[in-house]
């Protein structure tokens, strides 16, 4: 029998792996990859809570669905910004990103 706790612990592992990457990475794109990990962990939690605690409802399901759409928009914008920053500064590591205006 798969308990709810197992999946919650799994998504907590995913979340904190993302937080660790967020804190240690230097390249902004690698930081974005870590953010994707964290967002996926939350999506998984929404779906799991919906499925295991409230089978009749669908709020968690739709929240995860909308969250995926918003994440796609977020990463598209972030990647556009990073490519633009690379054009200006030829480097996208966070240490070099001191001036964001151009």
């Amino acid at each position: 029998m798969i308990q709810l706790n197992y999946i919650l612990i799994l998504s907590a592992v995913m979340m904190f792996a993302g937080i660790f990457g967020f804190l240690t990475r230097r390249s902004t794109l690698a930081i974005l990859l870590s953010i994707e990990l964290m967002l996926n962990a939350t999506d998984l939690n929404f779906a799991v809570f919906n499925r295991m605690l409230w089978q009749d409802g669908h709020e968690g399901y739709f929240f995860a669905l909308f969250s995926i759409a918003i994440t796609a928009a977020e990463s598209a914008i972030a990647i556009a910004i990073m490519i633009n920053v690379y054009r200006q500064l030829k480097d996208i590591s966070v240490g070099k990103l001191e001036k964001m205006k151009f």
Partner: protein
Amino acid sequence: MDAYNIMFVILAVMIALSSFATVLAKSVLRAAAYLFFALLGVAGMYFLLGYTFLGSVQVMVYCGGIVVLYVFAILLTRGAKDKLSENTRTKIFASALLSLTGLGAFIYAIVKAKFLNSMFMTPGALTAPTEGSMISINNVGQHMLSTGENGYLLPFEAVSVLLLACIVAALVIARKR
């Protein structure tokens, strides 16, 4: 242990290992490749829950769209040379300590909290999906486009406007001057 539980264990191990590999990989390109497997694992978890539409969306949007976008961006910006070793050892140690402490606190809170199923008032546990617990694509469409009590028309339209704004903004930001 039936096939359902075995599949869960396989997916859980895959997600956990790929997540660690994503944040520990030396090259960013490899990190993106490992992220792909973590996302596939989450999609598999959705399928396991019986949420097939959500799993398909995950595969299409994340594995098919976002990861490819990241790979392109990494190759375009020559960001593949990022190394973890540029950090001082103290900083990595402090980050690891912070993450592990947070994880411990989270797991403690999760284990202590009693999540009860609303219907049976039993601890939440996963059984094979039944007809009632599945949300079919038909249902998804009905909910998305209805304005009633369980309707999501407003967020649906808001997301569509957001995506349009996002396309325009990405073009404006990344265009050549």
